[in-house]
């Protein structure tokens, strides 16, 4: 019986030597995956879509906001339609893998979006993504 007691005492200690290793492992994971939100953008209500896919290449994303009044914002600056070309062209030169994420309000008139898409084509920023929300 006393033998049994001794055994249980030895087992009840949690090994803490590897604690730091585990913590550092998690730490490195979060350091690598963290992308700090740089821009605030404009307040928009995203359109809904079921077939949307999750974005994984966050580091290659360039954001473009259009609110319901048709105001366009890139890098927290309000820009005109004709400026989109130059800004996005500069972004494409800096990173040829840029994907333009269009965060457009669902009440925006499509004509504005179409003009922006044409500007993106002129800037050769051909990979675009229409940002959507999942649930109504």
């Amino acid at each position: 019986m006393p033998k049994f007691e001794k055994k249980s005492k030895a087992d009840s200690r949690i090994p803490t030597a590897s604690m730091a290793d585990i913590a550092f492992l998690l730490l490195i994971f979060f350091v690598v995956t963290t992308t700090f939100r740089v821009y605030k953008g404009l307040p928009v209500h995203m359109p809904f879509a079921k077939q949307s896919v999750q974005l994984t290449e966050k580091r290659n994303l360039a954001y473009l906001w259009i609110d319901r009044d048709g105001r366009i914002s890139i890098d927290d600056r309000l820009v005109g339609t004709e400026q989109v070309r130059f800004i996005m062209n500069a972004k494409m030169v800096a990173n040829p893998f840029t994907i333009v994420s269009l965060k457009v309000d669902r009440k925006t008139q499509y004509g504005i979006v179409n003009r922006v898409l044409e500007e993106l084509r002129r800037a050769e920023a051909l990979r675009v993504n229409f940002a959507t929300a999942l649930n109504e």
Partner: protein
Amino acid sequence: MALRAKRHIRGSAEIPTASMADIAFLLLVFFLATTTMISERGIGMVLPKWSGNQEPVKIPQERLIKIWINQYNRVAVDFEEVPIDQIARVVADRLRADAEDDDIVSLKTAPDAEYGIMVKVLDQIEEAYDLAGPGHTKRVSLATPGRMRENNGGP
């Protein structure tokens, strides 16, 4: 004497590792708190290259699946009005009927239509390609009526 001095140096050269876990956890909590895990979703497309003032390529009418959205946010597939949630089924039927796999879905949206409706229709088109099954290459064209140049694109 010599032995003692050596021992003293050896004792102080050790890095204290007891607080290592604390430091690691502190940093861990910081990065946990600052990580934005809000998942961003979207519908991806690749726009066609800017062709300048070139004449657009003529596409035979029978290869087009024409979807129109008018300024009152109503949708028609091949000139027949369709409720938005039925578009996937109608377009999927059209895609299945296309044996050569060369059909192009042309989505023309009036400039006064809502963007949210256009995305809903785009969502339905994506669903239609899912319903139609494999063997159908995604070819979607975005445009506004009256403009000859089209934003042809596929995902």
